[in-house]
C-alpha cells in the first residue's frame, strides 16, 4: 500500500486542461461561486450576531441557501469533463458511517492534489460548512449527514496540504457532535484520528496547509504561509482542547490534565491567548498538579501564570479609575486576577510544607530524625531523575518569556524541605504572596476571601513551627497566629459568618493549647516551674478553654439551649471540644486543693457529657471512638482522684 503523502509545492496544482478551462469557461462562474462563499461566511459570522431574538438563525439560514447553491454549481462544473474519473471512484462500495481512519487517506483513490482530488476537497469543504451550519442551528442529524459526506469525499483522496486541514477539522466537528449525544467513545475515535493525522502529516510533510476558507478564493488572494500555519495549528489546538474534555468526561484525569497542559502550551506558542485568561487557567492547572504532589510541574504553571499575567498590562491608577468606568473595570480585573494567582502560590507553598511534614513526622507529630535523613538521601537520588524529566516536560513560553519564567522558578524550591532553613525559605515566599493577596482582598467587601487568606497564613506558621527546633521560637510562631486571628474572631458578626467564626474559634483554641504545651515543655527542660510560668501556663490554658467554649456556645439555640441531637457537621468538632475542655480543666495548675477539686469536677462533668451523649446517640460513637474510650476511662478514674484530694483537704483541716 502506498503510504507516502503527496508533496505538492504551495497550493493546489491545476492541470493544464483545468487552467485553460477556467480561464475561458469557468472564470466568470468561478468568481460568482467565490463571491457567494464570501457572502455565506459574512452572513454566518457577522450578520448572524445582529439577528433578532425571535429569529435568531435568520442569517444562518440564508448562508445555508448560498452554500447549497455553491454545492450544485460545483457539481455541475465538471459534469462531462471528468466523468470517467468520477465513475472509477464511484465504483467503490459505500462506506459505513464509521471513521475509516487515517489509512483511508493514504493510497487508494486520487492523489490529493489532482483535479479530481481538488474537486472532492472543494465539495467536501462545502459539505463541511453545511454541516457546521446545521449544527449551529441545532439540526444535529442533518449536520452529521453533511459532515459524514465530507469525510466520505475525502476518503477518496490521499492526504495533501490542500485537504489535511479539512480532514482534521471535520473530525473535530464530529467529535463535538457525538459528545453532544453522550457518545463519548465515538467522539474520542474521531478526535484521536485527527490527532494522529496531524502528527503524521507534520512528520512526513509539514508544509503549511491550505486553510478551509481558501477553497473559494482567487489564487492571488491565497493566505501567506505564516497565516496558514497559524490557522492549521489552531485547528490542532482545538483537537487537543476537545480531547482534554473527552478524557475528563471519561474520568481519565491524568490524560486530561496532560491535554490541558498541551493546549495551554500551544496557545502560548502560537500567540493565541488572552493573557489574564491564560494565566488563570495555568494557575488552576498548578492546583491540580499540587493535588498530585507534582510540585515541579505546579511551580512551572504558576511561574508562567505570573509572567503571562504581567503581560496583561499596567494597572490603571486610582485616579484614572475614578475618571472612567472602563478604567475602573480594568483596574479591578487586573488586580483581582493577580491576587487570585497569588493565592494559588500561597497554596503551593503551604502544601509543599505540609506534605513534607507528613513525610517527616513521627507518630506524635514531631520531626523524626531518621526520616529526615532518609528524605535527604532520597532527594539526592531524585534530583538526577528530575533533571531528565524536566527536559522532556512540556514547557511554557516563547523566547521572551522563557527567561522570566525560569527566573521566577528559581525563587522557590519544588522539593520537600527537610530542615528549618529550607522550610523557612518556602515560608517566606508564601508570606510574600499572602501580603500581595491581602492588598486586593481587603477585609470589608471581601470578608470570606480575606479570612481564607489569613487562615492560610496561620497554616504557614503552623507548618513552619514543625521544623523549628527551639521551643521558645516555636511558641512565638503560634503567638503570631493568635495575634492574627483573635481580633478578627472578635470583630466578625457571628450571625452572618457563623461557619467562619466557628473555624476561627476552633483554630484559636487549638493554637492556645499548643502554646500551653510548649510553655510547659520549656519550663520542664529548664526544671523551672516558677509562679510566673504557672500564671502564663494557666492563662494559655484558660484562653484555649474560652475559645472551645465559644465554639460550643455557637451550637446552642438562640435561647441558649443545647440541641437534643447535634447536626452532622458539628457532631465531631463539638464532642472533641468538650473532650478538650475536660482535659484543659484538669491541667490547670493550682496550689489550692479546693481549686484543684473544682477544676477536676468540671473536667469530670465534661467527660461525662461526652459519654452520656454517646449513650443517648449511639450513632455518634464512630465519630469520636478514641476520645470516647478515654472519656470513659476518665469518668471512672477521676472520682477516685477527687475523693483523695477531698480526703486530704479534710484531714488537713
Amino acid at each position, binding site marked *: 500500500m502506498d503510504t507516502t503523502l503527496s508533496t505538492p509545492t504551495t497550493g493546489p496544482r491545476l492541470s493544464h486542461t483545468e487552467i485553460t478551462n477556467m480561464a475561458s469557461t469557468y472564470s466568470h462562474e468561478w468568481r460568482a461561486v467565490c463571491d457567494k462563499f464570501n457572502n455565506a461566511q459574512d452572513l454566518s459570522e457577522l450578520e448572524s*450576531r445582529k439577528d433578532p*431574538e425571535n429569529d*435568531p*438563525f435568520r442569517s444562518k439560514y440564508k448562508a445555508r441557501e448560498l452554500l447549497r447553491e455553491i454545492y450544485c454549481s460545483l457539481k455541475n462544473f465538471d459534469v462531462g469533463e471528468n466523468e470517467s474519473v468520477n465513475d472509477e471512484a464511484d465504483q467503490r462500495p459505500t462506506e459505513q458511517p464509521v471513521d475509516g481512519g487515517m489509512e483511508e487517506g493514504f493510497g487508494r483513490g486520487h492523489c490529493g492534489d489532482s483535479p479530481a482530488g481538488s474537486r472532492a476537497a472543494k465539495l467536501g469543504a462545502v459539505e463541511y460548512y453545511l454541516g457546521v451550519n446545521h449544527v449551529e442551528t*441545532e439540526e444535529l442529524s442533518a449536520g452529521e449527514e453533511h459532515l459524514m459526506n465530507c469525510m466520505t469525499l475525502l476518503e477518496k483522496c490521499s492526504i495533501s496540504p490542500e485537504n489535511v486541514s479539512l480532514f482534521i477539522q471535520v473530525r473535530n466537528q464530529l467529535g*463535538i457532535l457525538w*459528545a*453532544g449525544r453522550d457518545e*463519548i467513545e465515538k467522539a474520542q475515535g474521531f478526535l484521536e484520528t485527527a490527532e494522529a493525522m496531524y502528527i503524521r502529516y507534520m512528520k512526513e510533510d509539514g508544509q503549511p496547509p491550505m486553510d478551509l476558507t481558501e477553497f473559494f478564493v482567487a489564487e492571488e488572494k491565497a493566505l501567506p504561509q505564516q497565516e496558514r500555519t497559524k490557522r492549521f495549528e*489552531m485547528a490542532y489546538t482545538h483537537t487537543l*482542547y476537545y480531547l*482534554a*474534555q473527552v478524557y*475528563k*468526561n471519561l474520568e481519565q*484525569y491524568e490524560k*486530561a490534565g496532560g491535554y*490541558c497542559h498541551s493546549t495551554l502550551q500551544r496557545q502560548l506558542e502560537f500567540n493565541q491567548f*488572552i493573557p489574564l*485568561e491564560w494565566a488563570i*487557567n495555568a494557575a*488552576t*492547572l498548578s*492546583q*491540580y498538579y499540587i*493535588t498530585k504532589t507534582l510540585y515541579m510541574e505546579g511551580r512551572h504553571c504558576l511561574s508562567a501564570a505570573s509572567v503571562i499575567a504581567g503581560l496583561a498590562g499596567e494597572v490603571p491608577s486610582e485616579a484614572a479609575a475614578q475618571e472612567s*468606568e472602563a478604567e*475602573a473595570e480594568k483596574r479591578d480585573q487586573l488586580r*483581582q*486576577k493577580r491576587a*487570585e494567582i497569588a493565592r494559588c502560590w500561597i*497554596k503551593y507553598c503551604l502544601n509543599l510544607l505540609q506534605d513534607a511534614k507528613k513525610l517527616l513526622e513521627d507518630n*506524635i507529630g514531631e520531626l523524626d530524625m531518621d526520616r529526615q535523613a532518609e528524605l535527604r538521601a532520597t532527594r539526592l537520588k531524585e534530583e538526577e531523575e528530575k533533571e531528565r524529566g524536566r527536559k522532556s516536560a512540556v514547557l511554557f513560553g516563547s523566547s521572551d518569556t522563557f527567561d522570566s519564567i525560569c527566573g521566577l522558578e528559581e525563587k522557590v524550591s519544588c522539593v520537600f524541605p527537610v530542615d528549618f532553613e529550607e522550610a523557612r525559605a518556602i515560608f517566606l515566599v508564601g508570606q510574600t504572596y499572602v501580603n500581595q493577596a491581602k492588598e486586593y482582598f481587603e477585609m470589608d*467587601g*471581601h*470578608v*470570606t476571601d480575606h479570612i481564607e487568606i489569613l487562615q492560610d497564613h496561620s497554616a504557614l506558621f503552623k507548618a513552619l513551627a514543625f521544623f523549628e527546633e527551639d521551643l521558645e521560637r516555636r511558641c512565638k510562631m503560634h503567638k503570631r497566629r493568635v495575634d492574627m486571628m483573635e481580633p*478578627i474572631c472578635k470583630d466578625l458578626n457571628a*450571625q*452572618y459568618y*457563623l*461557619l*467562619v467564626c466557628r*473555624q476561627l474559634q*476552633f483554630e484559636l483554641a487549638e493554637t492556645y493549647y499548643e502554646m500551653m504545651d510548649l510553655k*510547659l515543655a520549656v519550663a520542664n527542660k529548664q526544671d523551672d516551674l516558677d509562679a510566673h510560668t504557672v500564671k502564663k501556663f494557666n492563662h494559655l490554658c484558660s484562653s484555649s478553654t474560652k475559645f472551645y467554649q465559644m465554639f460550643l456556645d455557637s451550637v446552642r439555640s438562640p435561647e441558649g439551649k443545647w440541641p437534643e441531637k447535634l447536626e452532622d457537621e*458539628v457532631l*465531631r468538632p463539638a464532642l*472533641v471540644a468538650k473532650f478538650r475542655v475536660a*482535659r484543659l480543666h*484538669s*491541667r490547670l*495548675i*493550682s496550689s489550692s486543693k479546693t481549686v*484543684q477539686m473544682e477544676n477536676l469536677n468540671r473536667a469530670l462533668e465534661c467527660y461525662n457529657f461526652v459519654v452520656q451523649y454517646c449513650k443517648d446517640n449511639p450513632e455518634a460513637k464512630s465519630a469520636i471512638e478514641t476520645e470516647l474510650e*478515654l472519656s470513659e*476511662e*476518665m469518668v471512672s478514674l477521676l472520682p*477516685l*482522684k477527687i475523693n483523695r484530694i477531698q480526703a486530704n483537704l479534710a484531714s488537713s483541716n
Partner: protein
Amino acid sequence: MVGDRDQRSPGIMPRAFNAVFDILQEYATKFDFKVSVYMLELYNDRLQDLFVSGAEAQSRRVEIKRNRKGLVFAQGAETKEASSAGELFAMFQQACANRHNAATKMNVESSRSHLIIGIMVESRNLTNGSVSFGKLSLVDLAGSERAAKTGAKDDQLKEANSINKSLSALGDVISALSSDLPHIPYRNSKLTQIMQDSLGGNAKTLMVVNVSPSDCNLDETLTSLIYATRVKTITNIAQRNLESKEISQLKEVIMKLKSGQPVEDEEV
C-alpha cells in the same frame, strides 16, 4: 419570580412586597418600621442600578458588599425608602422598565440578565427602644429567553467553531480535574460573590431555587443549581483527628492512675 408583564399572575417578588407590609401592619403598634430597597440588574457580570435609567446606569459602578459587621451595602446604587406595598410596587415597575431598556441595547451574546432586589427593614421596638435589622434578598436568575441556542451541556464539548473564539471552557475542564483543588481562581462571578457574602451561615437563611421543568431549560436549571451549591460553603472545622501527642499523653496519665502510681497534679 416577577410574574407576567401585566401582573395578572404576579410572581414571588410582587407578592413579597405585599407580604412584607402586611406583616409590618400587624406589628405597627409595637414597632416603628423603616423600609428601604435597592433594585439591581446583573448581566455580563456587571451590576447596574435599576433606579437609574439608560446611559447613566451604564456609567455607574455598583458593587454589593458585606462588611465584617454584617452590614450589607450596595455601593454605588441608590437605596429608596418605601412606606407602603404600593410604593414598593411602583418602584418595582420603574425598575423593570429600566431593565427592559437595558435589554434591547444588549449585545446578542449576553442574554442572561438577573434581577436582584434587596428589601431592608429596620425596626425599632417602641417599648424598649432596641433596634434590629432584617433583609429579604430576592434574586431572579433568569434563563435565556431566546428560543435559540440552548448552550452546551456539561457533557457536551464546549466548542470553538470560529477559529478565533477563545477556548473559554478550558477553565471548566481544568477545575474539574480534581474535586479538591486547593484554590479555584475562577468562580468569583458577581453572582457567587453576592450569594456568598450576602447570605452568611445562619440557619434562618433560606434559598429557594426556581427551576423550569422543561428540558429545553436544562442548561439554566443546571446553572441555577450549581450556583446554589456553591453558596453552601461546607468546610471542616476540626480538620484532623486529635493530635496524637495529646492522646498519648492522656493515655499515659490513665495508665498511671490505674496502676495507682502517684500522678503530679499538673499532669492529670
